[in-house]
C-alpha cells in the first residue's frame, strides 16, 4: 500500500515539474491541455479566465460556502445539533446582508441540505471569477475549547517551486517584468491544484478584517439576559482542502464550538447567528475598502447596520 502512495507522490512531483517546464517555456496551449484532467467545472472556469470574456460589465461575485451538508453533518453538539445546519443558517443571513447593502452578486455553494464535494465548492468560485470566498463553519474539538477564529490557507507544505511562484504572484511588480501575460496565465494554470497560494496575502488581510469584527461585535451586542460573547482565538493558517483550489482571496470562519455545550446553545440561537453574519459582513466591507479590490462601479456606500 505504501508503495502506491510513494508512487503517487512521486507522480505528483513529476507532474508539477512538467508543469513548471511548460510555464517556464510560456507555452499556454500546452498548459491548457493539462487542465481538463481536473473536473469539468474547473476546466470551464479555466477556459473562461483564459479567454477573458467573463465579467466585463457584470456584477462581481462573492461566494459563500456553508460547510458540510447532506450526509456530511460536520461537528455534532452534545444536544444533537449539527454543524451543517448552523453553517447554512448563518450563510443565508450573510448572503441577504451583502445583497441588501453591497453591489455584489452572492452565490452559495449550497442553499439547502445537500452534499457538495469540496472540489465543486472551489470550482463555483473559480467558474464565476469570484472576488472573495468565505467558508462558514462551526468548530469541534476533543473537549470543551471555546471561541471564534478565522483561518486562511497554510503554505508550509507546498513544494519549493510552488512557494516561489506564490511569492512572485504576491509581488506582482516583479512578476510583470519577468513573465508576459500569456506566461502569467500559464503560471496560473499550474497552480490550480494550489491556486490559493497566489492569493495568500489578500486572504490573510480578509481573515484579519473578519476576525477583528467577530469577537468585537459579539461582545458589544449587549444582551443582558444571555451573553453572546465569544472568545477571540485569532487568525490562523491551516491546510483546508476546501481552500486549496480557490483562485481568489479565501477564508474559513469558525464561528464558535459546536463541541462546547454552552457555545452549541449560542450557535442555534437566531440572534447569535444574525450577530455573526453582521460581524462577517462588517469585516468583508472593511476588507473591500482597504484591499483595493476594485469595488464594482458605482461603488455603493454600505448601509449602516440596523
Amino acid at each position, binding site marked *: *500500500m*505504501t508503495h502506491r*502512495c*510513494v508512487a*503517487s*507522490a512521486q507522480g*505528483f512531483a513529476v507532474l508539477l515539474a512538467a508543469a513548471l517546464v511548460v510555464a517556464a517555456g510560456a507555452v499556454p496551449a500546452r498548459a491548457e491541455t493539462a487542465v481538463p484532467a481536473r473536473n469539468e467545472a474547473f476546466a470551464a472556469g479555466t477556459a473562461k479566465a483564459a479567454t477573458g470574456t467573463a465579467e466585463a460589465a457584470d456584477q462581481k461575485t462573492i461566494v459563500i460556502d456553508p*460547510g*458540510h451538508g447532506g450526509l*456530511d*453533518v*460536520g*461537528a*455534532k453538539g452534545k444536544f444533537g445539533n449539527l*454543524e451543517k445546519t448552523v453553517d447554512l443558517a448563518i450563510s443565508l443571513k450573510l448572503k441577504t446582508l451583502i445583497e441588501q447593502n453591497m453591489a455584489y452578486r452572492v452565490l452559495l455553494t449550497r442553499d439547502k441540505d445537500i452534499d457538495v464535494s*469540496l472540489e465543486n465548492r472551489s470550482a463555483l468560485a473559480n467558474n464565476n471569477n469570484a472576488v472573495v470566498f468565505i467558508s462558514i*463553519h*462551526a*468548530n*469541534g*474539538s*476533543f*473537549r*470543551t*475549547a471555546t*471561541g471564534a477564529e478565522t*483561518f486562511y490557507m*497554510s503554505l*508550509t*507544505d507546498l513544494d519549493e517551486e510552488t512557494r516561489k511562484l506564490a511569492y512572485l504572484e504576491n509581488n506582482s511588480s516583479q512578476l510583470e517584468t519577468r513573465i508576459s501575460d500569456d506566461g502569467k496565465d500559464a503560471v496560473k494554470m499550474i497552480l490550480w491544484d494550489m491556486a490559493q497560494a497566489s492569493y495568500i496575502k489578500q486572504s490573510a488581510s480578509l481573515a484579519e478584517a473578519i476576525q477583528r469584527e467577530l469577537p468585537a461585535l459579539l461582545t458589544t451586542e449587549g444582551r443582558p439576559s444571555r451573553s453572546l460573547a465569544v472568545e477571540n*482565538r485569532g487568525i*490562523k493558517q*491551516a*491546510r*483546508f*482542502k*476546501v481552500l*486549496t483550489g480557490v483562485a481568489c482571496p479565501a477564508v*474559513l470562519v*469558525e464561528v464558535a*464550538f*459546536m*463541541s462546547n455545550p454552552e457555545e452549541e446553545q449560542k450557535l442555534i440561537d437566531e440572534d447569535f447567528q444574525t450577530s455573526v453574519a453582521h460581524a462577517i459582513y462588517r469585516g468583508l466591507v472593511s476588507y473591500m475598502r482597504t484591499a483595493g479590490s476594485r469595488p464594482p462601479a458605482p461603488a455603493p456606500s454600505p448601509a449602516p447596520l440596523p
Partner: protein
Amino acid sequence: MKTQKTALVAGLLIVLAVLVAVLFRSGGREVIRKSAPAAAGPPAPSPDASAPKPTLKVSVFFVRPSDGLLVPEEREIPVSDSLVQETEAFIAELIKGPTGDLAAAIPRETKLGRVYITKEGTAYVDFSRELIENHPSGTTAELSTVYAVVDGLAFNFKDVKKVFILVDGEERETLAGHIGLDRPFSPDYSLIGKK
C-alpha cells in the same frame, strides 16, 4: 546460467541489505540506560532484572481541554535499532491516550497499521479507519489529531522531516471534512501550547 542466477540473487540480497540498513538507521536521540544491563545474558529471573532494558524518552502530545492546543506528556519507549519500530512504539503511546488531565488526540479505537519511512525522511503512517470514522470532526479537533502525529514524530525523531497520514493504507481527501490529507505535512509547532 545457474551461476548467473545465483549472482543475480546475491546482488539483489546485497541491495536489499543496504536498503534495510539505510531505512532502519535511526538518528541521534536520548537513550536512557537504566542500571547496567551489560552482559545480561539470558533474562535472569532476578527481581531487579525486569526493567533494565534501555528506553527512549519521548514527548507525546495530547489535547489541553481548555483551548484545544497540544501539550506533551513524557513517555518511555523501548530503544530499537529500527527507526520504524521506535516510531510505531511512539504512535502506540499516542493512541493509548493521556494519563493525566489532557484529552486524547486520536479516537481510542484507532489501530496503527504500519509506519514506513522514506530515505528523504517522509514517514507514511497508516491508521485504521476508526481514525476518521470515530473522529468528532471539526477544524480544531482535526488539527489536534494531525499535529499530535506530525509534530510528535518530527519533534522526537530528527530523521522524520514530513509525515503522510494514511487510512487503511490509502490516501484520503480530508481527515473529517476539513484538513486535507492529500500531501505530506511538515511540523507546525504553533499548535503546541505553552505550559
